[in-house]
C-alpha cells in the first residue's frame, strides 16, 4: 500500500536566515545493456561511486554524531530507474573491479612516487564497494529513503526525462506530460509526493507554474535573474522567493554564494590542493598492461583513478595528497559559512520574510567533479550546527516560512550560458526540434487511432516477454514509442552537443532513438510489428519505467 503523500517537518527555524541547499542528482538514461563496456555507463558508475554513495556516507556520519541536517535532494526519474537496475549494478561491480585491479597494479608496480596514492585509491574503491553492499544492501535509494523518512533530507524530483521545458512551450502538452510522468516515476520509486519540483536546467517560461500547480507542486527553483527580473522585481533580489500569481513559490539561485563554489576562476573546487578531475590514470597506462589487467585496452573508459592534484593551470601536476585536500575542504566550508549572508543585504522589500539563500547544485559536483565536495558538505553542516545565525531548511520548509513573500511573475530564464535558452536551442541543436515535433505529432495520431485500446491499458515496467496477443503487442509498441519520444526530449543530449563534450556520441544517440521510434511508428501504422524488435526497444530504452499511455492522454 502506498503511503500518503508526506509533508516535510516544518520545524521552526532558529534564525531568520535560512539556507536552502538543494542537490539535483540526474543522469540521462545511459544504459547500454548491448555492450559490455560503454562510455555512457561509466557516467553512472563514477557518479554512484564518487557522489551518491559518499553522500549517503556523509548523511550517516552526521546522523551518528547528532548533527542536524536539512538538505533537499532532487532525484531525476531516469536516475531513479538506473539506481534500481540490477543489470547496471552488476556492470558497476565489473567496472569497479577493473579500476581496483589497475590501482592494485600501480600500488605494486608503478613508479615509486605513484604507489602510495594508488594504494589509497585501491582502498577507497574497496571501501565504497563494501559500503554499498553492507550498509546499503545493494540499494542506495533505500538508504536515501531512510534518511528522508527521518527528516534529514527532503526528496524532490524533476521531469520524466529531464526535458528542457522552454523548448516545448506553446501548448503542445509536452511539459505537462513530462512533469506528470516525472511525478509518477518518483512516486513509484519513493511512495512520496514532492512539494518542490526541479525544473531541468532551471528552464522556465511564464505559464509553467500553472502546470506545476495542477500537478500539486508548491515551489520550484530558478536562476537568479528569473527572480531579480521578475515582474515586478522584488526589492530584496533573490533573498526572498517570489510568489507566482497562482501561489506557487519560485526561489532564485543566490548568485554570490553560488559563485564561491561554481566560479571557474575563483571557486573552491579549483584550488590547487584538490584532486585533478581531468587526468585519469588509464590514459597513462600502456595498452599491453591494460589488456593484461582488464582484458581490453579499447576503448579506454574512465577508471576514476586520479592520482594528481590540480596544482596549477599547466600540464605539470603534483601528486594528490588526500589529507591536505581534506584540510582545505574544511577551510573552504568555514569560509563559505562566513560569506553566506553578507551584512549589507537589502531586505527592504520583505522585512517580514526570513532571508533566504537558495543554493542549488548538481549533486554530481560533490564527489565526481569536485572530489572533496562530500567532505565540504559534511563540514558545512557541522559548522552550521554551531552557528546560531543560519538555519538550514528544506525547500518545503522554506515555502512555509516565506508565506509573506512578495508576488510576481518570474522572468523566462535558464541556468545555461547567458541565462537564456540558447544552450539548448542553437545552431548546432536546432535540427532536433522539427524532427521531434513531427515525431510527437505522429505519435499523437497513433495514440488517437488506438485510443480505445490505450484507455484500458495500464502498464508498469516495460514487459520484455513476448506477448502473443496482437493487441497486447500493439499496446507495448505504442507505449515504447511514447517512452522513446520522452527520451528524445532529454536536455542532456543538446547540452552535450553545445558544450562540445561528446557531441558525436550525443548526436548518434539521438539518431538511434529517432530510428527506433520511426520503425515503431512504421510498424504500428502498417501492422507489421515484430515482438523481437519491440522487445529489443524495451530493453534499450527502459526509462521512464513508470510510463503508461494514460500519461499522454489529453496532453499531446
Amino acid at each position, binding site marked *: 500500500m502506498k503511503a500518503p503523500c508526506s509533508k516535510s517537518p516544518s520545524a521552526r527555524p532558529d534564525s531568520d536566515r535560512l539556507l536552502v541547499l538543494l542537490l539535483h542528482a540526474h543522469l540521462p538514461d545511459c544504459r547500454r545493456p548491448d555492450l559490455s563496456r560503454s562510455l555512457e555507463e561509466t557516467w553512472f558508475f563514477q557518479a554512484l561511486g564518487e557522489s551518491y554513495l559518499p553522500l549517503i556516507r556523509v548523511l550517516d556520519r552526521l546522523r551518528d554524531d547528532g548533527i542536524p541536517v536539512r538538505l533537499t535532494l532532487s532525484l531525476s526519474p531516469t536516475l531513479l530507474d538506473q539506481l534500481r537496475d540490477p543489470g547496471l549494478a552488476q556492470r558497476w561491480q565489473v567496472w569497479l573491479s577493473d579500476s581496483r585491479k589497475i590501482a592494485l597494479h600501480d600500488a605494486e608496480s608503478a613508479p615509486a612516487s605513484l604507489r602510495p596514492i594508488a594504494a589509497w585509491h585501491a582502498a577507497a574503491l574497496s571501501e565504497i564497494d563494501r559500503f554499498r553492499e553492507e550498509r546499503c544492501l545493494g540499494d542506495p535509494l533505500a538508504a536515501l529513503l531512510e534518511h528522508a523518512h527521518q527528516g534529514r533530507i527532503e526528496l524532490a524530483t524533476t521531469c520524466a526525462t529531464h526535458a528542457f521545458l522552454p523548448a516545448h*512551450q506553446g501548448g503542445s502538452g509536452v511539459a505537462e506530460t513530462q512533469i506528470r510522468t516525472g511525478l509518477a516515476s518518483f512516486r513509484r520509486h519513493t511512495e512520496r509526493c514532492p512539494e518542490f519540483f526541479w525544473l531541468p536546467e532551471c528552464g522556465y517560461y511564464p505559464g509553467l507554474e500553472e502546470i506545476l500547480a495542477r500537478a500539486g507542486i508548491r515551489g520550484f527553483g530558478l536562476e537568479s535573474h528569473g527572480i*531579480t527580473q521578475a515582474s515586478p522585481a522584488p526589492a530584496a533580489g533573490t533573498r526572498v522567493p517570489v510568489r507566482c500569481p497562482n501561489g506557487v513559490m519560485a526561489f532564485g539561485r543566490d548568485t554570490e554564494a553560488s559563485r564561491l563554489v561554481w566560479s571557474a576562476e575563483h571557486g573552491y573546487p579549483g584550488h590547487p590542493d584538490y584532486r585533478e578531475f581531468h587526468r585519469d590514470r588509464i590514459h597513462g597506462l600502456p595498452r599491453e598492461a591494460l589488456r593484461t589487467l582488464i582484458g581490453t585496452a579499447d576503448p579506454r573508459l574512465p577508471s576514476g583513478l586520479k592520482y594528481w592534484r590540480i596544482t596549477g593551470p599547466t600540464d605539470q601536476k603534483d601528486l594528490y595528497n588526500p589529507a591536505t585536500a581534506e584540510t582545505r575542504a574544511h577551510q573552504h566550508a568555514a569560509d563559505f559559512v562566513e560569506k553566506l549572508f553578507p551584512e549589507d543585504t537589502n531586505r527592504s522589500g520583505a522585512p517580514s520574510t526570513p532571508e533566504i539563500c537558495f543554493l542549488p547544485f548538481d549533486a554530481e559536483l560533490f564527489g565526481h567533479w569536485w572530489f572533496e565536495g562530500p567532505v565540504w558538505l559534511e563540514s558545512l553542516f557541522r559548522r552550521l550546527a554551531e552557528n546560531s545565525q543560519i538555519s538550514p531548511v528544506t525547500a518545503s520548509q522554506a515555502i512555509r516560512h516565506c508565506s509573506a513573500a512578495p508576488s510576481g511573475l518570474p522572468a*523566462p*530564464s535558464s541556468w545555461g*550560458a547567458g*541565462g537564456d*535558452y540558447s544552450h539548448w536551442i542553437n*545552431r548546432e541543436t536546432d535540427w532536433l*526540434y522539427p524532427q521531434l515535433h513531427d515525431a510527437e505529432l505522429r505519435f499523437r495520431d497513433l495514440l488517437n487511432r488506438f485510443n480505445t485500446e490505450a484507455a484500458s491499458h495500464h502498464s508498469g515496467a516495460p514487459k520484455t516477454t513476448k506477448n502473443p496477443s496482437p493487441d497486447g503487442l500493439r499496446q507495448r509498441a505504442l507505449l515504447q514509442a511514447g517512452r522513446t519520444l520522452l527520451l528524445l526530449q532529454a536536455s542532456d543530449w543538446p547540452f552535450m552537443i553545445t558544450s562540445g563534450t561528446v557531441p558525436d556520441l550525443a548526436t548518434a544517440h539521438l539518431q538511434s532513438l529517432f530510428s527506433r521510434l520511426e520503425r515503431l511508428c512504421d510498424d504500428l501504422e502498417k501492422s507489421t510489428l515484430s515482438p523481437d524488435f519491440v522487445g529489443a526497444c524495451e530493453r534499450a530504452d527502459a526509462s521512464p519505467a513508470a510510463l503508461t499511455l494514460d500519461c499522454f492522454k489529453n496532453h499531446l
Partner: protein
Amino acid sequence: MSAPHHPDRTAHPLPRLTEVESAPVNPPGSYLRILPMDPHRLFVYWKLSDSFTREAHLTVGRPAVPDRLLLRIFQLDGLNSGLSRARITETVPINRNRRETRVHLSHPGGYVVATLGLQDRQGRFYPLVRSARAALPEAPASPESPTPRRIDETAVLQRASLTGLPPELLRLPGDGHAIRNNQLHPEPHAAVIPQTPMLDERNVVESALNPRTPRPGLELETDSPQTERGRPAFATVTAPSSHSLAAGSAYEGGAPLALHAVLVAEAFPVRGERLTVAGIEGKPDRNGRCRWTLPCEDFNAAWNLLKKPAAPANGVALGSEPRFILELEGIVRDKTYLARLPRGLEVDAANRFRAARHLPSDHALVPAWSLRRKTSSAA
C-alpha cells in the same frame, strides 16, 4: 495520382484578414512553431501540407511572389494580453523550399507570436497558420548590454525591397521615420540597381574568409572592386588602422583567445542543387539544410560582409537560388577587447556577440561604392 484541382474550400476557409488572431493555430497537417533562443533570436519552423497550400493559392490567387511566403512576428505586452493588441515587429520573406529559419528581433524580450502566410498582388497578407505564443528569455542585467539592439539598416533595405509590402514595413521599426528619410540610403528601393555585374554572395563569403593579402595584424576591408574569376569581388587590404581586432586560431603562451568568432552560412538548396561556400560543398542534413561553419580568420572582413547593403538582383543572377542566412557570432574572452568591437555589435552578459543577416533569393550583396555612386547621382 494528381491532386484534385478544386478541393473543398468550406472545410478550412482561409482568413482574409491581416489580424493575427484570424490565423488558425493547427490547421490539418500544418503547424508553425517558434522557439526562443535568446532575447533577440527565434528559431522558427513549420509545416504546410500540400493540400492546405494548394487551397491557399486558390484563395489568394496568384501571389505577389509565387515561391515566397511571408513570416510575420508579432510582439505582445504580456503573458495574457490579447492577440488583437499584438504589434507586428518583423516580416521575413521565406523561400518555399524552407521549413525553418532563425529570426533576429529588433526589440528583445517579451512575448511573441508568429504567422506564416501569402501576400497577394495588392499587398494584402493572408495568414495561413499561426504559432502559439512564446516567452523570450531574458539575459541577466549587465552593464555590457544595457541597450536594445540597434536597427540593422540592411535588414530594412531587404524588407523594403519586397514588392507590395504591408505599409508598416515602409517605416523603420521603432522610430517612426519613413524609410525614404533614411540619410544613409536615400533611395533604398528597387531603383537602386547595382551598376556592376551581380555578385555571387558565396564568392563574397569566400573572399571574406580567405583574404588575399597577408595581414600583419591590422586590417580593414575596403570596397575596392577587384576582379576575381571574372567577377568583381571585395578585397581585404592592409590599412593602418587601430580599430582592427585580432581574431584567429593562434594561442599565445597558452592564454585564451581574446576573441573567437565564426561565420556561418546556411541555405536550403532545392532538390538536386549543389551549393559551395568557401570551397566547401554543402551536404544537406535530414532537414534539408546546408550549413557552413567557418572559423573567422578575418573578423573585420566578416563583419563588413554582414553590414553590407543588399539590393534586389533585378530578377537576374540569383533569382533561382535559395536564401542564405549569414551569421557571425563568437565570444570576447578578454574584456579589454570589448571597447574595440565595431559599433553596432552588441555583447551580452556572457560577452557573447551575434550578428546576422538574411539574404533573400533574389538579393545580392553589392559593393557600397556602387550604392554611393547611385546616391550621389540621385542627389
